């Protein structure tokens, strides 16, 4: 091992950006050694410098970025001494990169075949025919159906998952020694992501390519990588083999990160997530000494903030090192986290009743002057479910499943085509929001997904919350409104002087808290939360999720939690509704959904979610293909095109019957009840070894 030259080595690498405010260190003292055939994960939250590392390796820093210290050795040669021409030869041939957004990596006006063939034509001077031949054979290797058709297509003619496969094929065409993957699946649906992850694993086995996999998702890193670097605020805080870091993490930040993600053992009542307090420091406001110091429970005044902290090897672990001066003195066993277990809430009467709700859109097919007949998109088809007081109902599904349309109908922004929605005893399906009375409007409020979009950037936070209070007539007096705004800020645990701030002065998590305060300002009965934490950093997600649930608990609000993330859903939902292409595939209590019998789609969805826990064993079910277009859904069961259990001749033609498995557990499937009951669990938590945080933190609550 030692006589091999590493493919890539970063030594004490420091990178800075130069902006108006001065020099901003993006990455400080970064070390990495990547051996041939190895795959190395870099994990961290936004702004931690993980993408900057990738750009520096590509030597593609832009005008205002630069390497200010250390060196990058590629196959033993210092990249900083190479000429621009040498670098250009290197990029795309020896080093290839796959970015997050596949559509942005492909030229929309060129056929895919031409784009792919360019790589060998440029780098290896082969003949045209050979270039095309190689391109086509690689498309086959990335498991794309019908490669010759794809060679002849434009990027917009294929789906997102297929585009990403083409980008990966393009990166592999020149047989690179190093493949950089920067969040390659973040823009994709979970079931599509699972396919890409599988492909990446196969590639590293088949081609022996060394890989650097950048992600914010610990579960994905666990599935794809051999080694792992955890970054925080521009520094690597922990490096080691996957198994060591996952099972015996040393750095308090790594601990915190693992503690704040929902894994199968977490439960909102008995063992709530532990959020890391505070927030990421801005690059120019990093503290002296340990960057994590202000958020760390083990912060020691004299040791932790006296100067730069070096990486230190962990005794007994060959290749694990950690940037913490106190890691060997921290006594994790006696460390009590302040997570309070809560009592289970009793749900009350039915608050929201959705009965056979359908929402169809007429889409005119493009024709010159005369429309060639309208097509119908069935965004929601025959949805039926109930939500009780103080209950959390999760609506789960991938993009295009109709969950956002459903929210729009509920909120009165769209009218239902047929069916009814009852809030209490008021029918709302066909009543637009402007025709609803103030009480009804304030009873149904929403928390939105994108923190950067959820607040009006030109108004202060206080005036935006105040507007809701006035609009719903909670208070009319100016000083009373102000008082109520301040109280709401207390409830969402933000300082009161935030009322005078503009949204741009707030971090993503803080904005999302304001969004929650705004939704609860009118004392609603039902709150719809549309992916409220999916755009937030992992360490902030837990805090916002907990806050949302605490307020819900205190007000006995019904929460409709729309999400694609089954881990979060499992953690917080009481009941789950699984949707696919506008229809409900399965509904039941959370326990019923996450244990057999499953609907085949639920089963695949469960298998696709990456879990950051080495003790969890999953049954691999990788779906083929992608979600069909809602414009042209299958006639029978919507899932039949991808289902691994498909019964030929039945599923394509006949809509599935609703099989009642238990009291309120319904599965829409052609499979016989006995077959469904015979299914094996997808996720198995092995008892040995138990998850470390369980063992260390709350031993008495387990078992």
């Amino acid at each position, binding site marked *: 091992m030692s006589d091999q030259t590493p493919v890539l080595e970063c030594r004490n690498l420091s990178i800075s950006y130069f902006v108006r405010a001065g020099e901003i260190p993006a990455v400080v003292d970064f070390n990495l050694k990547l051996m041939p055939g190895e795959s190395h994960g870099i994990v961290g939250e936004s702004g931690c410098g993980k993408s900057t590392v990738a750009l520096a390796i590509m030597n593609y820093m832009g005008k205002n970025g630069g390497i200010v210290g250390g060196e990058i050795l590629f196959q033993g040669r210092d990249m900083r001494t190479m000429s621009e021409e040498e670098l250009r030869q290197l990029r795309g041939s020896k080093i290839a990169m796959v970015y997050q957004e596949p559509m942005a990596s492909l030229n929309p006006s060129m056929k895919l075949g031409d784009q792919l063939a360019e790589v060998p034509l440029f780098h290896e001077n082969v003949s045209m025919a050979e270039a095309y031949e190689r391109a086509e054979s690689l498309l086959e290797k990335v498991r794309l159906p019908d490669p010759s058709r794809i060679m002849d297509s434009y990027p917009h003619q294929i789906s997102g998952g297929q585009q990403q496969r083409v980008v990966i094929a393009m990166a592999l065409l020149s047989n690179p020694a190093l493949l950089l993957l920067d969040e390659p699946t973040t823009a994709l649906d979970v079931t599509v992501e699972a396919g890409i992850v599988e492909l990446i694993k196969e590639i590293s086995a088949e081609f022996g390519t060394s890989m650097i996999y950048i992600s914010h998702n610990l579960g994905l890193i666990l599935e794809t990588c051999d080694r792992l670097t955890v970054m925080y605020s521009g520094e690597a805080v922990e490096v080691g083999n996957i198994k060591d870091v996952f099972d015996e993490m040393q750095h308090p930040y790594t601990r915190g990160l693992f503690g704040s993600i929902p894994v199968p053992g977490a439960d909102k009542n008995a063992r709530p997530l532990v959020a890391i307090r505070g927030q990421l420091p801005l*690059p120019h*406001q990093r503290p002296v000494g340990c960057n994590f110091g202000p958020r760390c429970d083990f912060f020691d005044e004299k040791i932790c903030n006296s100067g730069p902290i070096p990486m230190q090897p962990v005794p007994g672990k060959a290749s694990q090192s950690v940037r913490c001066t106190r890691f060997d003195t921290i006594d994790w066993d006696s460390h009590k986290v302040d997570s309070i277990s809560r009592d289970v809430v009793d749900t009350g009467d039915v608050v929201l009743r959705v009965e056979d709700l359908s929402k169809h859109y007429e889409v005119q097919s493009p024709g010159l002057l005369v429309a060639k007949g309208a097509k119908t998109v069935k965004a929601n088809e025959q949805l039926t479910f109930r939500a009780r007081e103080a209950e959390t109902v999760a609506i789960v599904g991938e993009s295009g499943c109709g969950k956002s349309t459903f929210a729009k109908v509920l909120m*009165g922004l769209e009218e239902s085509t047929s069916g009814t929605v009852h809030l209490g005893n008021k029918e709302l399906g066909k009543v637009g929001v402007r025709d609803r009375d103030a009480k009804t409007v304030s009873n149904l409020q929403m928390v*939105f997904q994108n923190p950067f979009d*959820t607040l009006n950037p030109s108004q202060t936070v206080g005036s935006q919350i105040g507007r809701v209070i006035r609009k719903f007539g909670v208070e009319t007096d100016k000083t009373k409104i102000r008082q109520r705004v301040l109280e709401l800020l207390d409830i969402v645990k933000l300082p009161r002087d*935030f*009322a005078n701030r503009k949204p*741009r002065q707030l971090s993503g998590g803080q904005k999302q808290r304001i969004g929650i305060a705004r939704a609860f300002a009118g004392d609603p009965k039902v709150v719809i939360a549309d992916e409220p934490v999916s755009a937030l950093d992992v360490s902030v997600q837990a805090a916002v999720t907990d806050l949302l649930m605490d307020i819900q608990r205190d007000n006995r609000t019904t929460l409709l939690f729309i999400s694609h993330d089954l881990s979060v859903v499992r953690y917080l939902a009481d009941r789950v509704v699984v949707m696919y292409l506008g229809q409900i595939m399965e509904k039941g209590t959370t326990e019923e959904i996450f244990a057999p019998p499953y609907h085949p789609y639920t089963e695949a969805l469960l298998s696709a979610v990456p879990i950051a826990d080495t003790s969890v064993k999953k049954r691999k079910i990788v779906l083929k293909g992608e979600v069909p277009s809602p414009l042209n859904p299958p006639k029978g069961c919507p899932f039949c095109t991808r289902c691994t259990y498909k019964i030929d001749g039945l599923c394509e033609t006949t809509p599935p019957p609703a099989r009642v498995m238990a009291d309120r557990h319904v599965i829409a499937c052609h499979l016989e009840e006995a077959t469904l009951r015979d299914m094996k669990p997808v996720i198995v938590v092995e008892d040995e070894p138990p998850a470390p945080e369980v063992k260390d933190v709350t031993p008495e609550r387990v078992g």
Partner: protein
Amino acid sequence: MADITEGGAPAARPPNAVVTFFKGLFLLRESPVGMIGAFLVLTFVGMALFAPFVAPYDPNLPQIPFSYPGAAAPDGGTFWFGTDQLGRDILSRIIWGAQRVLFYATAATLAAYVVGIMLGLMAGYYRGWTDEVISFIANVILSFPVMVLYVVIIAKFGASGANIILAVVFASSPGIMRIVRSLTLDIATREYVTAAQTRGESGWYIMLVEILPNARGPLIVDFCLRMGYTTITIGALGFLGLGLPPPDPDWGGMITETRAFITGGFPHMAIIPAVAVSLLVLGFNLLADGLREVALRD
């Protein structure tokens, strides 16, 4: 960049429009082009505001005709820019002319903006047939040559300040409407707009409170550019004899009245007002460039 410098500032300041405005000007200092533009525009604005104090003579007072720049005036002063064919001091006429051109350019552009913003918001927010009707009318107007439009309107209604404003509103509001429409289409998809809709706000509240303030950046840049166009328009109308009625000074009119003398040995009479128009328009354009540059930088 504002986020980097202020994002974590612990002290909460009540937002103040005046402070924000001067902060904006302060940022402009990083764009040399923008500084030149701001200097030119502010010079003319200063001249216009303080015309009674800075103009050496009455702009309509006939003194010594056909004086060259630098000639001595009867009262012992100097005609720095000379006099015209009627003996009026050109410097004083430029200064008083700045007041008129800036007043009418601002008034006309603002009026065009009010109309353009209303129509653009409606087209972009309501979409559907509202958009189609508004966009169709705008396209029809935009397909006419601008000058022909001006000539027709002024010829029909007569040359006066109010009619100049009317003509400018008619000719430039379709362009403004298009910009506002496209900005609105984008902003209307933001979640804070949906949030306002879900609490039952009226259309105009959403358009004016939730959408318009967030479109202000590009609109301010466009406003500066359009001030330049309108200055040219007012000059051109004056040149065609369709501008403000004489004898009050009007830069375009000054060029027309004296263009016969350009070849007769007195080119300064026409060149000086022409330079004034160019400098003011240049100032607006550079200012717009500078603002755009500063706004784009992060």
